[in-house]
């Protein structure tokens, strides 16, 4: 209960909400514009974060370059997913996309000598035998520098999470501007047309498949960026971080915000973050009859209930307009 009034915890939640927001923005590009139901989005996050971690730990690559490589691998993963399955009609694609992320997780889980397997990044073989396997050596001084700048304003309250939250939200802001711009471009208009119907854009000489593929790749790049921040926020990775449920957290934010526009996304991300973090404090009756491990289950149940409730009562999201909603 004490943590409830501690600002530190909520700053952590804010940082997480920003990461989920970036993640969800990747889905927004795919679904909000292209109508593509990608349920394997978490796979891109797993690909980028693990690529970065392995390059840094096992090969001693510079962190910034490794991060770029990570995002590139996420994009490649998206391209692979799109090339193999995007020609399928909607329902098929969704099922296969879930499989994509699960296979990524499965391979990470079972490749002990390479990804660290079930023990996560702590078990990734270091380049120099005996070195502690960490990928944050370059990042920590940087975030420490940001923290020191924040300390000028916030004094002792400034901490690592606050610096992280700032960086994440600046990134999200930049991405929102970029994606907002992209979504006003002719490219996005074509993509919107393909969402409604394949034949009309095809008759106008547009390669529908290519446009969708580009949308998936762009979404995967954004998902990959979220993956890097995810890795940095926790300082270690585990295959269990990338369960399919994370994709649905992203979807929930997107549905809350109203899919066709990016405007509501930051608020939806914060709403989700606080719902997710807040359920930790459900210690009052009737939840008080449960022990703490049982209350952890309640959290996911509440997320499930909110999803169901939203779809029944406000399918256009909290901030969307009904006439704009797309539910094909």
């Amino acid at each position: 209960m004490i943590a409830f009034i501690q600002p530190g915890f909520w700053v952590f939640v804010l940082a997480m909400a920003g990461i989920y927001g970036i993640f969800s923005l990747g889905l927004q590009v795919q679904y909000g514009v292209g109508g593509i139901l990608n349920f394997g989005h978490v796979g891109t996050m797993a690909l980028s974060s693990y690529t970065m971690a392995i390059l840094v730990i096992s090969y001693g690559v510079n962190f910034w370059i490794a991060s770029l490589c990570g995002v590139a691998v996420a994009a490649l993963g998206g391209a692979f997913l799109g090339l193999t399955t995007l020609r399928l009609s909607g329902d098929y694609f969704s099922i296969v996309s879930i499989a994509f992320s699960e296979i990524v997780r499965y391979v990470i889980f079972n490749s002990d000598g390479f990804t660290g397997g079930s023990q996560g990044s702590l078990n990734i073989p270091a380049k120099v035998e005996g070195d502690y396997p960490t990928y944050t050596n370059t990042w920590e001084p940087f975030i420490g520098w940001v923290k020191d700048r924040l300390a000028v304003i916030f004094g002792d309250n400034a901490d690592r999470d606050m610096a992280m939250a700032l960086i994440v939200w600046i990134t999200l802001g930049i991405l929102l501007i970029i994606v907002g711009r992209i979504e006003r471009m002719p490219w996005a208009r074509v993509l919107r047309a393909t969402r409604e119907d394949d034949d009309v854009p095809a008759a106008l000489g547009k390669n529908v498949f290519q446009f969708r593929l580009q949308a998936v790749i762009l979404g995967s790049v954004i998902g990959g960026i979220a993956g890097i921040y995810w890795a940095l926020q926790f300082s270690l990775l585990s295959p269990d971080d990338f369960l399919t449920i994370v994709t649905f957290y992203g979807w929930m934010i997107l549905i809350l915000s109203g899919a066709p526009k990016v405007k509501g996304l930051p608020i939806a991300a914060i709403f989700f973050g606080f719902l997710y973090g807040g359920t930790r404090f459900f210690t009052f009756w009737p939840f008080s009859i449960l022990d703490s491990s049982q209350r952890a289950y309640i959290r996911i149940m509440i997320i499930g209930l909110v999803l169901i409730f939203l779809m029944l009562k406000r399918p256009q999201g909290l901030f969307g307009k009904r006439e704009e909603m797309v539910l094909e």
Partner: protein
Amino acid sequence: MTDFIQLLFNGLVEGSIFGIAALGISLVYSVLRLVNFAAGDFLTLGAFTTFFFTTSIKFPFVVAVVISMVLGVALSLILEFILWRKLRKIRAGTLALFLVATGVAFIVRQSIAMLFGSDSRRFEIDQIKSFEFFGAIIPQAQLIVLVCSSIAITAIAIFIKKASIGKDMRAYSDNPSLAAVSGINVNRVIIATWIISGTFGALAGVFQGTVQGQFTNAMGLDLLLSILAAVVLGTIGDAYGALIGGFVLGIVMELSTWDALLGGIPSTYKPVVAFVVLVIVLLFKPEGIFGVKARKI
């Protein structure tokens, strides 16, 4: 040769479980256009309720299985009345149905976890007794699973083909509005669909629990992907296709670990094999093994 027979048997057993689970999903999809992501957790529910009634209340195993099937049907019907019906009324689209099904899955899974904890469980049945067949070891429990699921599959195949409600189902899934105007009782069709799906879900869960020996509350979820692969492989919405897809996948997954095939792959990668098979099939025949043409959604 012994290895081959062993793997073939394992594949048949696993395939028959995939088959009946896939059939439920495929039937629900063909009638309701709903990909039931909660199906995996209904499997788990079936296994855990059977476990509960055999160990805590000491019912005979068969009775416990029947009760589990009834509970599976009851829950399916409750969801039909409080959720799916309303969603149909507001003409919810693919995404809405997906997300609601996922929400249901979360709730069912977490409820099981809350009630039974996260420990692994096992049925109180004889797991050791087995026969030898050309050197391969055939456990009695698995043989029973194979026989029972084969009976269930045959029964349902005859039911869909011959029974009037089965015909109604096929008609409705082909063309809902035409079926409705020609006097088919749509409600009856939908309820029958959920009854079959609920029964088969619970049954598949019990079978899988038996074959695995030990199971946790993640059993259904772990299995869901392979089942969905079977569904898509046999053309989504096609009941017989789902059965055959299940068998094909079960056998391919088991045989992929065979030493004689380039050393075989580690058995932990079996679910990956399921999807590699699926992706290859989809690349060359996007409508599934038995599909006529891709159905546009």
